[in-house]
């Protein structure tokens, strides 16, 4: 077992525990449990808001998969990854102040609350709750598997013990601390990511003998690595550009991101978060993916992409520093998982149970159920991740793009287009999900339609569906302004 790596990681986990515990004490003193547990009482400041958005969004794929692909593809994949800078400002500018104002007026605690009040429709609520529970549950499970594999490869623990360690760490603070604990630990985890990637990038550049030297090695091996077109020259401009939807502007439609856009205290927090979020996202994405490319001449011949970052860290850094740096991908995975866990739990407790099963539940019952559902979900994910079923892996494929195609227009147009109504929203969600799954299979068989990522067409189709159905059925302008307020 690798104690030099293990000790800093355990120290990191202890810090995270402590924050969760501290947040839970604040929670027990709260008067509005639901809003505090699932939304942190709408009092996030700018820094925590920016970090929790970055950390929720930066998952296993940006810290392990992405750099691993950059290792094989070269600079073209770093170019693709930089499409994510836009998320740093776009989400908060688009949802922005109007979303914050409407969410407060609706007393919305979840994204579904917002949709419920805006469209006034049970079908919209149930359809969105169902998509969130199914897709995000699978996404979460996939992240747990990634987290456990990382712990396994770093510490030499068996997969099952690694998974157990990972699960206990996440469950404790999410269950007892709720959103505030998640957001605060995200902030710490975001800071760890920021520093970790910088240290590792510098170490890799030094190990490679400077950037010019590294780039020369790449040129000597395969000049395509230095072009925007990928190692085999098959990354087209259209394909790479379509990632602007998947990992760029489309992120507006992700429920775990959208809920954060209603959690901040005031417009000053939002302004600060815009700036910090843009800088931090760009910095982390640029560093991480450059590390992937630069690792190639330093440590050639790595077959499994996900192992590039752990291996290069162990190669170029002293063990205890590697332990701290590798807490970064660990942090990224944990912070994604914790948000998803809480979001799925809020869909069940707040959106389904409190809306339709027992609207008049006592605060004590709500508390017990919130803790219970969050904990139970965690245990189910743990058991599934021990031996992941095929279906789970399958559903995870649709989690990101599918949810974006489903939710982007009901949220954005619900906010800005007065003609949007429940028929449009239902049609848009159904079209988004169905066409995403359908196109996924088509693309598997025939290659990408029009040479773009699967998400592109469903997002356009769901826009058409939203507009067409809103105008054709039950056309009525929505009243955004309050005329009287008594």
């Amino acid at each position, binding site marked *: 077992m690798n104690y030099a790596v293990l000790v800093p990681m355990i120290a990191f986990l202890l810090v995270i525990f402590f924050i969760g515990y501290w947040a839970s004490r604040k929670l027990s003193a709260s008067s509005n449990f639901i809003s505090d547990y699932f939304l942190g009482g709408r009092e996030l400041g700018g820094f925590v808001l920016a970090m929790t958005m970055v950390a929720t969004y930066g998952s296993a794929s940006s810290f392990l998969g992405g750099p691993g692909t950059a290792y094989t593809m070269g600079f073209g994949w770093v170019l693709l990854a930089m499409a994510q800078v836009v998320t740093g400002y776009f989400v908060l500018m688009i949802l922005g102040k109007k979303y914050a104002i409407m969410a407060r007026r609706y007393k919305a605690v979840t994204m579904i609350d917002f949709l419920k009040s805006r469209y006034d429709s049970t079908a919209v609520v149930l359809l969105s709750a169902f998509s969130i529970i199914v897709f995000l549950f699978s996404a979460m499970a996939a992240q747990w598997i990634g987290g456990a594999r990382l712990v396994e490869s770093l510490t030499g623990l068996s997969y099952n013990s690694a998974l157990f360690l990972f699960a206990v760490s996440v469950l404790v603070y999410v269950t007892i601390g709720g959103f505030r604990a998640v957001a605060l630990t995200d902030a710490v985890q975001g800071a760890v990511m920021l520093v970790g990637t910088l240290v590792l990038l510098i170490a890799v550049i030094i190990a490679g003998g400077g*950037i010019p030297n590294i780039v020369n090695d790449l040129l000597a091996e395969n000049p*395509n690595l230095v072009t925007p077109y990928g190692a085999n020259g098959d990354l087209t401009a259209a394909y790479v550009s379509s990632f602007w939807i998947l990992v760029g502007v489309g992120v507006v439609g992700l429920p775990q991101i959208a809920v954060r856009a209603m959690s901040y205290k005031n*417009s000053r927090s939002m302004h600060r978060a815009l*700036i910090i979020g*843009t800088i931090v996202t760009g910095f982390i994405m640029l560093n991480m993916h450059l590390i992937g490319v630069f690792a190639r001449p330093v440590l050639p011949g790595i077959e499994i992409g996900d192992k590039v970052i752990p291996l290069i860290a162990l190669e170029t850094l002293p063990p205890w520093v590697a332990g701290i740096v590798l807490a970064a991908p660990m942090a990224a995975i944990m912070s994604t998982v914790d948000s998803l866990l809480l979001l799925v739990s809020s869909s069940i407790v707040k959106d389904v149970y409190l809306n339709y099963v027992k609207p008049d539940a006592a605060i004590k019952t709500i508390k017990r159920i919130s803790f219970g559902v969050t904990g139970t979900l965690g245990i189910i994910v743990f058991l599934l991740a021990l031996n992941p079923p095929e279906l789970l892996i399958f559903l995870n494929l649709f989690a990101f793009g599918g949810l974006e195609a489903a939710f982007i227009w009901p949220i954005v147009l619900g906010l800005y287009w007065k003609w949007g109504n429940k028929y449009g929203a239902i049609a848009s969600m159904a079209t988004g999900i169905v066409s995403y799954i359908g196109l996924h299979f088509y693309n598997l068989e025939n290659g990408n339609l029009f040479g773009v990522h699967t998400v592109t067409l469903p997002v356009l189709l769901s826009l058409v569906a939203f507009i067409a159905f809103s105008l054709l059925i039950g056309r009525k302008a929505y009243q955004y*302004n309050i005329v009287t307020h008594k």
Partner: protein
Amino acid sequence: MEETDWRFKIAHREAKIGVGLALFNFVWWFGFAYGMGSRPVEEYSYIFGLPDWFFYSCVLGFLVMAVLVIVIVHFFFTEVPFEEEEDSP
């Protein structure tokens, strides 16, 4: 007739700024990457050791966006209250 909430006018303007920024970001990113990157590799020049198209598109592009966001937020974004004003008409 009812009046548009004054805060919504600000919110709408800021959302439009967001769309504008994203478009500008995309054009910058795409223009440098594929405008300069489509030349033969032998013609690339290198800035701080990085291929020129990549430096302009991704490194400089990121810095430009960061500065733009800071400037725009400071000078064009307005602070508004989120809570409802109890005495509004």
